[in-house]
């Protein structure tokens, strides 16, 4: 068994100041909303395009 994280303790910290989170657009792109964390970090998420294709295929 891998015990790498068994006793790991993270520093408890006060909330940091961040930009106000964007509200979900009323008629916005739900996929974009779901992947907002990756988009904010400018990270490519392998599931994002897959999900778009799946939703497109489903509606076809």
């Amino acid at each position, binding site marked *: *068994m*891998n015990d*790498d*994280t*068994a006793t*790991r*303790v*993270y*520093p*408890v*910290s006060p*909330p*940091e100041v*961040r930009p106000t*989170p*964007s509200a*979900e657009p009323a008629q916005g792109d*739900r996929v974009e909303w*779901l*992947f*907002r*964390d*990756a988009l904010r970090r400018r*990270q490519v*998420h*392998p*599931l*994002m395009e*897959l*999900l778009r*294709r*799946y939703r497109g*295929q*489903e509606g076809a």
Partner: protein
Amino acid sequence: MTAASASVQLDKLRELPSLPQVVIDLQSALSREDVSIDAIADTVSLDQALAAKALRVANCSFYGVPGRVVSIRQAIGMLGLRSVSTVLTIAAVSQSIPRPSCPGFDLERYWRHSVAVALCARDMARTLRLDADVAFTAGLLHDLGRLALASQASARLAETLRRRDELDCAMLEAERATLGTDHAALGAQVAVRWHFGPAIVDAIRLHHEPPAAPRVTVTDIVHIADGIAHALDVAGDPNEMVPPLDPTAWNRAGLTEGQMLLILESTEAEVDGLCDALAV
């Protein structure tokens, strides 16, 4: 709050009840060759609530059994001991944790997400020729720490949920900053107490950070299945957010787009039926 005082409050997790002995016995029996199916069936049948729930799950469309399964012995004959063990584990976990009452924690959404991860992990394991029962159980229990927190430390979880909502950050991030630990580590502690095997404990502990491995593991599968279940939005959480995906775990799985699309489809199709059978 310091990490030490947070830890004191999280000690309440140790007060969680044990799983029924029959489920612990089954877990250990599966690793032995001299298993008596009759003895197991007799023992399971003594726990009427557990047996009834297990039969209800065995009879749902998820297992695709023709006709009706009416006894545990018949269930073992038709589904096999491993699948019956999985069914019993599901039934036992869902009835062993006291129903949480925590502002912001929705038990129905919790189980819908867990069931989706379990179904998706099972399908991925079958495609990749890994142990589908282990993958299913690990998927079902991957967020066990969150359920334990909701049940035993609801004020701490409520504080964490508020922080997540205020910052619109990932739950894992909010847990580490608020509790000094996270649901993955806490869930693994509960799973060890409940005598689950190392593959399941590792998958629970490391499902957000799968370690390097020479080939695909159950932990990789649960990590990816968790991302898929969030992406499919099965829980209907207004604050839903897909967690980061480890590209090395994704590459180790190496599933084609066609395989992935089939897995997404079957996961969505089966969630409602299994949630109904579990009555969760």
